[in-house]
């Protein structure tokens, strides 16, 4: 019978906390940049410019149909060679996760926009609105309400995806856990703690997402 000893983890509290902070901050950054990309790409995909739509669709499919772990590795090892630049693990990871998240966010944004009844566009145009005014005043405010729950879910996925950063030696929660495991030969305790910490961060977020969804159904 394995005898658990969580007490020995106390001495590593500083490393664990720094891992949590890295994970949370990194998620915050890639959620924001991913949303920016997602909104722009989503808008682009409902534009009438066919070339633009095609290019953006290509981007979305490439990032949706390859594993995010492969993307992380590719951005760190392959892209710098192709472009002849040097990317820090942070930069490569931020770039990969931004573009990965952006691809999924853009599908949510596009779906939200096309789900709004065409009658809204016609009503807006009938009172003399331009296409952009229709988008800004009528479509987007209604679409964003519908998009919020899936955007929150996708952001939760983003946080979980940051656990892959450890392969590029970015010191996130998982990476710090690995360090401690190597140091103590106590992987059970540390990986259990890591899992619990992820849960503590994410569970409230899923509760919020659920609330938003219920709110949506009522509205």
């Amino acid at each position, binding site marked *: 019978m394995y005898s658990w000893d969580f007490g020995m983890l106390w001495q590593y509290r500083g490393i664990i906390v720094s891992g949590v902070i890295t994970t949370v901050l990194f998620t915050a950054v890639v959620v924001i940049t991913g949303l920016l990309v997602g909104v722009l790409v989503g808008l682009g995909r409902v534009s009438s410019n066919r070339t633009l739509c095609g290019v953006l669709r290509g981007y979305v499919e490439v990032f949706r149909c390859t594993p995010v772990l492969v993307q992380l590795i590719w951005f760190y090892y392959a892209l710098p060679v192709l472009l002849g630049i040097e990317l820090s693990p942070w930069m490569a990871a931020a770039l990969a996760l931004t573009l990965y998240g952006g691809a999924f966010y853009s599908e949510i944004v596009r779906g939200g926009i096309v789900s709004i009844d065409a009658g809204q566009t016609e009503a807006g145009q009938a*009172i003399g609105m331009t296409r952009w005014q229709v988008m800004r005043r009528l479509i987007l405010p209604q679409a964003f309400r519908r998009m919020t729950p899936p955007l929150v879910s996708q952001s939760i996925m983003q946080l979980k995806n940051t656990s892959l950063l450890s392969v590029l030696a970015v010191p996130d929660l998982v990476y710090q856990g690995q360090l401690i495991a190597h140091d103590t030969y106590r992987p059970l305790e540390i990986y259990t703690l890591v899992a619990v910490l992820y849960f503590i961060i994410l569970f409230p977020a899923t509760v919020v997402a659920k609330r938003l969804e219920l709110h949506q159904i009522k509205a």
Partner: protein
Amino acid sequence: MSKPIMISVRGLKKSFGDQTVLRDINLEIAKGEVVALIGPSGSGKSTLLRCLNLLAAPNHGVIKIGGECFDFDQTVPEKLSDRTMARFRAQTGMVFQHFNLFPHMTVVQNVMEGPVTVLRRPKAHAHAQAMKLLAQVGLAEKAEMYPEKLSGGQKQRVAIARALAMDPEVMLFDEATSALDPELVGEVLNVIKQLAERGMTMILVTHEIAFAREVADKVIFMRDGVVVEAGPPAQVIDAPTQAATQAFLARVHKIAA
């Protein structure tokens, strides 16, 4: 007719793909005139209305409304800028079968939206005007409600107020009472009648033949994308000369009876 011409349509043609919906439409409508467009489904009435404010882009023909004129024999609709079309549309008010109110805005915000966003009027000014229009359609006390709380008839009256807020030269009604419960049709028709009495130029696509006879100065019967018969209601509705008109009216009367 001595009154100035408000709407003039010449040689209007519209097709969707290889399906021709409007073949060769010619119309002249004087300022203050009320025109009822009647005809069977698929006759092109709604498409004609939508061509008049460019929600559907005509393939050929000339459309003149008020001071603005578009010649689609010379211009391709795709070449028209968004802004040009928006300005043109702003001078015609349109009321839809399914209301199309903005669900994320209150009733009064719905009415203010055009003046504030398109005409860039100050909010206070637009609010005062919106309240006056809501009073005119009998809904001042619903100003702060959201559309979902309203009945179909109330929604449609808000939609009329929203269109009127742009001070349009012309009002277009696309089957404005077709989606309403029978007991709510009257309240909307009353508002339309008031507008007619105030001298608003209007085109109504309608299935309410009795109402058309009552308020319209001119009735146009369409079938298969052409105007079959046009004239005062006493002529087109009560004594139609064309077989198609007679057949259509006989069917409508049978349903009504």
